């Protein structure tokens, strides 16, 4: 109370106050002007560097303008996808263009047949299923090791210098992209989807493990302290104080990595490890652009559906949305169709 009275005195007369505010505004404006000049200089620097980089790459606007019709022409080749090889049925009946797609959908049995007999000839449906299976199983196979390295890589779990043993392993794995990892497995399992699956599993250890470690670094200190003050032993403190805090974010990250892995599975096909990538590469090699376009269409369908499904699942598992229940209540709610459609919220 008394402090505040003194303050009023210090503030003094109206005119004095106005002057002090004016001075302060001047100071702030000066500081702001300097900051603005620095920001402009920084922006100019970035622009100059980018320009230099583009010149180094041989970029000229004229070339882009000149080549644009060629680019457009190429793209137009993909505008009329040819689903001849969509299923064994469509290739057997020689259904070209979109009739291959709709003709096969009209015969649902042909979809199943193409999946079951994927070795009896190329079909987009069969290749898609291979790609999805490679992505999903690769994630599941890599998960336990990702969990192991991820948890032990955290400084909260393993004391400082030793956690770098695990962090370093994950960093090394991450430094090598999956498309290179598959080259390590091809001598072992041949250029097959199996090699692709192992490449993805290896990649998952690095990627998912890193996310797990980061998540663990950010857990709240409070609950850990509280659990250890109950006299729990070290591994109990880790399980109850730390891992229980990050359980649902681990699930969410695992789903996110699954999403990415399906995308990687497509790219691995390009080096011959089966699936949709291989189909697309094969068609492009024969300059069959329309048939390649059918594969690309399927890629878009798969990637978007996996992403939609996974992000919907992740938002359902977010803890704040199910305030009252645990993880299994959340899982139970997954089977509530209305919630998926966004109805009957709250």
């Amino acid at each position, binding site marked *: 109370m008394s402090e505040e009275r003194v303050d009023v005195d210090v503030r003094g007369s109206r005119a004095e106050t106005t002057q002090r*505010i004016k001075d302060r505004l001047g100071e702030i404006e000066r500081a702001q002007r300097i900051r603005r000049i620095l920001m402009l200089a920084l922006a100019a620097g970035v622009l100059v560097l980018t320009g230099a980089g583009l010149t180094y790459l041989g970029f000229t606007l004229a070339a882009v303008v000149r080549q644009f019709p060629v680019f457009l022409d190429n793209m137009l080749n993909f505008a009329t996808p040819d689903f001849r090889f969509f299923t064994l049925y469509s290739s057997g009946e020689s259904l070209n263009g979109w009739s291959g797609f709709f003709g096969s959908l009209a015969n649902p049995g042909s979809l199943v047949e193409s999946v079951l007999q994927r070795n009896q000839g190329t079909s987009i449906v069969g290749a898609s299923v291979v790609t999805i299976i490679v992505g999903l199983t690769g994630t599941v196979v890599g998960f336990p090791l990702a969990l192991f390295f991820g948890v032990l890589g955290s400084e909260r779990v393993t004391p400082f210098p030793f956690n770098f043993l695990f962090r370093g392993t994950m960093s090394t794995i991450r430094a090598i992209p999956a498309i290179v990892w598959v080259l390590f497995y091809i001598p072992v399992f041949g250029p097959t989807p199996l090699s692709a699956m192992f490449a993805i599993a290896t990649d998952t250890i690095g990627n998912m493990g890193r996310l797990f470690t980061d998540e663990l670094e950010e857990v709240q200190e409070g609950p850990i302290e509280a659990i250890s003050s109950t006299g729990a032993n070290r591994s109990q403190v880790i399980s109850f104080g730390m891992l229980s805090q990050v359980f649902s974010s681990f699930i969410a990250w695992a789903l996110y990595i699954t999403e990415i892995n399906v995308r990687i599975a497509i790219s691995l096909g390009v080096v011959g490890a089966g699936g949709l990538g291989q189909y697309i590469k094969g068609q492009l090699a024969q300059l069959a652009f329309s048939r390649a376009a059918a594969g690309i269409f399927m890629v878009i369908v798969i990637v978007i559906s996996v992403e939609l499904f996974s992000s919907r699942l992740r938002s359902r598992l977010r803890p704040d949305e199910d305030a009252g229940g645990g993880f299994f209540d959340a899982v139970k709610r997954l089977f509530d169709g209305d919630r998926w459609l966004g109805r009957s919220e709250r």
Partner: protein
Amino acid sequence: MPAITVENLTKRYGDTVALEDASFSIPEGEFVVLLGPSGAGKSTLLRILNGLTEPTEGGVYMGDTKLSGRRSDIGMVFQMHYLVESMSAYKNALTGALSREDLLRSLLTWYDTPDKVAALEALDTVGLLEEAQQRAGSMSGGQKQRVGIARALVQQPDLMLADEPVASLDPKAAEEVMGYMRDAAKERTLTTIASLHQVGLAREFGERYIGLRDGRVVFDGGKDDLTMDVVDEIYYEGDEEASAATQEAIQ
């Protein structure tokens, strides 16, 4: 003319009645404290006054105009201050002038000079002129809340609302913040409605008290009418034991 008139305000959420038939009027420049236990309807009342929630029945009038929707002439001070912590106190205060600026000018901090002066004046009112360029995140809880008051003042409001502005502060900081808030209100003849949990603080800073319980106005009066029995009735109706214990603790 009364600055604020609340007429038969009722708010129901489904079957729950948050506010029932609340009526009162507040003359311009009065410092009103809302008292009541958690769930009594204090926050609902403030949210309706602020236009964040529409009432089920009844209405709020400022002068002769009925209020609805959010308005820049009603300033709000939040319990958890809600500052943008990465910005300076000055820039936080300036956000109170956003309704008078378009996006580009506000992004570049090209506010009109009167607005800049208003922001600094508001910071001066809450005793933070020297700290104007400090990052809000690095300030103490009491300072943050004072920046929150400054932001509300820069809106040049006709009514200032405060939802438990000092609930998360220590007693000394709480006292300071309430002091600055009262000074600001007095300096600008600003009608203020603040909800408070601490009866002691309320007695010290309020001019008028409105007690809510179960969504009803159970008390409306000045400092002299706010006796221990009244406080008792607001907080402890039907719980003699707890009331006795608290009274003992206070004495």
